[in-house]
């Protein structure tokens, strides 16, 4: 299955992936609207910054996902290999936050939880991959 | 003021025709005139010419120079030069007949001659090179003189006019040869100059050519590194020099000459067996600038044979036929059928693949 991978050798820590992610999930038709008037919208991808190393992290879409197994409401499920959250069922207990070994379940005040769905609800190549200026984020099949 | 050959490069379309009898049987020149006449529309009256091989059996060991003179001063000067360097066995005007379509004719003279042995030895050149240098000398240095044929037992006859008229003018029906080539010219902007008509000749090499090569200046600048001087700026001239350089000086076979001027594509060379591959890579690398591109169909006449070749994409028409011992080549089939209605075989040679026909052993030399 194609997944999003980040090659930290090429990640510049520019954070554009976060902005493209937020925009893609904002439902807005352009980026300026998505961030209008300082609106901060939490991305589903997180850039970690070090002194010389940066990389972005987002849901690994594990084959054996602890988040799905631990979910108390059945809001998290795997569909065609993609781990999805049903917003209407999630109660915000954060058991998934507790469980995810990569820290990829995102919390904020807009929704109970957010997570990467590989832009399945958008279209085609994930927005973070498209927006990465250095091809550090790729969408590909890896064994 | 329109410029003539040598002052400007003139593109032209053309008709070519030629045939050879392998057993050396000499055929009346009227045949080739008839053949080329059937392609009248491929010429525009601005140039026609012929080359005949085996036409001077009585002088076959002498070089036959055909020369145009614009005036008698140039003739006198040329003859002084010839007398100084050659033993002239015979000289005369070339017989012509008046023709209403052939006008402004220059003085047309013929010399049968051999190099003076002392001069030849002093030049440290081989005999052929001596001839070539002498011809170039006359053509460049003597204003108004132009040697247009210089081989043995062969001759070129050319003029401004339609080829069939030129044939009549030169009374070709009074000659017989084992091989003939003919050319009808369709230049695009010239008033026509007799020297610029085809065939172009050097020694016994003659070329009739239909096409316009796009590699001209690359070819020209390369051959000029080896002592040639392209004074006419015509394709035919440069092709003749290329063949002279490769065939006479580098001693490449005519087949290999064709592999230089219409080289196989790299993609083809890559698929050949090692030995051939090495050879063709060597040829293409060494003679890179002698590759001829753009459309051409040529008939090369040489002592004892004809060779016909198309460019490697076959961008010009050329058809060949065979009947008994005779092989015909022409721009159009009609030119062959005109003189040989029932052929044994007729075919369209592929681009880059030469037809080389030589006299059978024992054929007339």
């Amino acid at each position, binding site marked *: 299955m194609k997944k999003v*991978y*980040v*090659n*930290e050798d090429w990640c510049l820590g520019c954070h554009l992936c976060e902005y493209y992610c937020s925009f893609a999930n904002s439902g807005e038709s352009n980026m300026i609207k998505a961030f209008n008037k300082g609106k901060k919208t939490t991305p589903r991808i*997180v850039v*970690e*910054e*070090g002194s010389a*190393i940066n*990389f972005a*992290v987002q849901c*690994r879409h594990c084959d054996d996902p*602890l*988040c799905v*197994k*631990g979910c*108390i*409401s*059945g809001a998290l499920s795997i569909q065609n290999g993609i781990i999805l959250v049903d917003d*209407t*069922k999630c*109660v*915000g*207990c*954060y*058991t*998934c*936050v*507790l*469980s*995810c*070994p*990569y*820290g*990829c*379940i*995102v*919390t904020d005040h807009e929704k109970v939880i957010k997570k990467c769905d590989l832009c399945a609800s958008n279209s085609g190549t994930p927005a973070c991959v498209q927006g990465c200026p250095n091809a550090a984020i790729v969408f590909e099949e*890896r*064994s | 003021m329109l410029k003539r050959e040598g002052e400007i490069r003139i593109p032209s379309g053309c008709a070519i025709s030629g045939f050879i009898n392998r057993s050396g049987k000499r055929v009346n020149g009227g045949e080739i005139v008839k053949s080329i006449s059937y392609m009248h529309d491929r010429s525009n009256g601005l140039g026609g010419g012929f080359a005949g091989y085996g036409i001077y059996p009585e002088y076959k060991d002498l070089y036959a120079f055909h020369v145009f003179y614009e005036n008698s001063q140039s003739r006198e000067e040329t003859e002084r030069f010839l007398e100084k360097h050659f033993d002239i066995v015979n000289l005369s005007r070339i017989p012509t007949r008046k023709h209403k379509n052939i006008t402004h004719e220059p003085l047309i003279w013929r010399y049968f001659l051999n190099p003076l042995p002392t001069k030849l030895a002093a030049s440290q050149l081989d005999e052929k090179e001596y001839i070539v240098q002498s011809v170039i000398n006359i053509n460049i240095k003597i204003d108004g003189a132009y040697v247009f044929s210089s081989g043995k037992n062969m001759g070129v006859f050319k003029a401004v006019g339609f080829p069939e008229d030129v044939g009549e003018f030169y009374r070709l029906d009074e000659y017989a040869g084992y091989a003939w080539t003919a050319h009808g010219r369709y230049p695009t902007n010239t008033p026509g100059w007799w020297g610029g008509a085809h065939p172009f000749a050097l020694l016994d090499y003659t070329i009739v050519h239909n096409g316009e090569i796009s590699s001209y200046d690359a070819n020209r600048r390369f051959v000029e590194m080896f002592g040639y001087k392209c004074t006419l700026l015509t394709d035919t001239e440069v092709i003749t020099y290329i063949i002279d350089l490769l065939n006479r000086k580098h001693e490449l076979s005519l087949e290999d000459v064709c592999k230089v001027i219409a080289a196989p594509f790299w993609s083809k060379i890559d698929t050949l067996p090692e030995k051939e591959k090495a050879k063709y890579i060597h040829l293409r690398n060494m003679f890179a600038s002698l590759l001829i591109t753009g459309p051409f169909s040529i008939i090369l006449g040489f002592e004892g044979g004809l060779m016909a070749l198309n460019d490697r994409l076959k961008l010009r028409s050329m058809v060949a036929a065979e009947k008994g011992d005779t092989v015909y080549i022409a721009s159009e089939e009609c030119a062959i059928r005109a003189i040989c209605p029932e052929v044994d075989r007729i075919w369209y040679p592929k681009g880059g693949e030469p037809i080389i026909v030589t006299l059978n052993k024992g054929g007339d030399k």
Partner: protein
Amino acid sequence: MNYLIIGNSSAAIGAVEGIRQVDSTNPITIISDEPHHTYGRPLISYWLEGKLSDEKMFYRPQNFYEKNNCKLLLGTKVTAIDIEAQVVQLQDTSFIEYDKLLIATGSRPLMPPVPGLEQVKNKFSFMTYDDAKAIKAILKPDSKVLIIGAGLIGLKAAEGITKTTSDITVVDLADRILPSILDSEAAQIIQKHMEQKDIRFILNNRVDSFSSDTATLSSGETLDFDLVIVAVGVRPNVELAKEAGLAVNRGILLDESCKTSDANIYAAGDCTESMDITTGEQKILALLPNAYMQGEVAGICMAGGQKTYTHAIPMNAIGFFGLHMITAGTYDGEAVVTHSNESFKKLVFKDNVLKGYMMIGDVKRAGIYTSLIKEQVSVSKLDLELLHSKPQMMLFDKARRLEKLGGVHNEN
């Protein structure tokens, strides 16, 4: 092959999904004494609060049993297991045969022996959908509610009813709320937050006796109430197992494949004991993720597959009135505590590994800490400064990151 599952909650569902990973055809029978389609047990407080509608209570979609070829016997109680005959007996004395059996009977609330409690009419536990429904049926805006027990269940119950009534008192014997998972500093933060929402706490105290609408505390104080919710703890439902002759301690004893002492019987969930790797002790870890994963391992193994359940730890994620907390592991060791803004974090290290943590407020990416505990990663290999500052993948070295995040294998 014929699978039988007693129970219909997370462990049972985990088992169904486990079996179906290996065996897509053989029939599964599920017996539950509850009358409901499988529902998320911890959701009852959210339902009570009105956050969830009935149809969102379900743990799995409506077509779950059908899709997984499960026969469902709801409202049915198993009365005995005959391990020799490989049958279970139902309350109507009929028998059901099994080739492989899963016991996922869960636990039940503990009722403390307080004088007068038996006579209290409006007393409830808070374990089941039906409990929640019963409470809702009787709860009125002016209801005075007394909750016995300041553990997770008690406090979730308090949150669940707070929109309906504001007169809520929580009594606990311990000196702090959530005593089993928080230290006093952390407990204080939660308590304060809940008190701001008008929940009243009486700690270090107990109800000595009840009358029908009054409780008398050991301090002598009396409390009027309209209803009592008892949430002092749970007891595993191990009786069936014990009577069938299976090895049982406090909970049913299992090997790593969740098999009991009988080769054809497995067990999972709150009725079992797991090995807490942070202490090395066998204990009951009554947690939903734990139940599911045990159930899944049991299911896979019942169907002939191979999988083990080994990395169990106590852990909880919960929030009260928007304040989130996540805890995991145990707290015996050297603690590193950080406060920032309204957040609290405590990391506990022992023997060079992270043993436990508490995070309140900012719980972002806590799972990275959880994984350190579960995988018993030696902290000497990690960047401690980064480890202390926040959960992040950066604290691993490059090779480890590549392995975890990318499957990128360097050429060298």
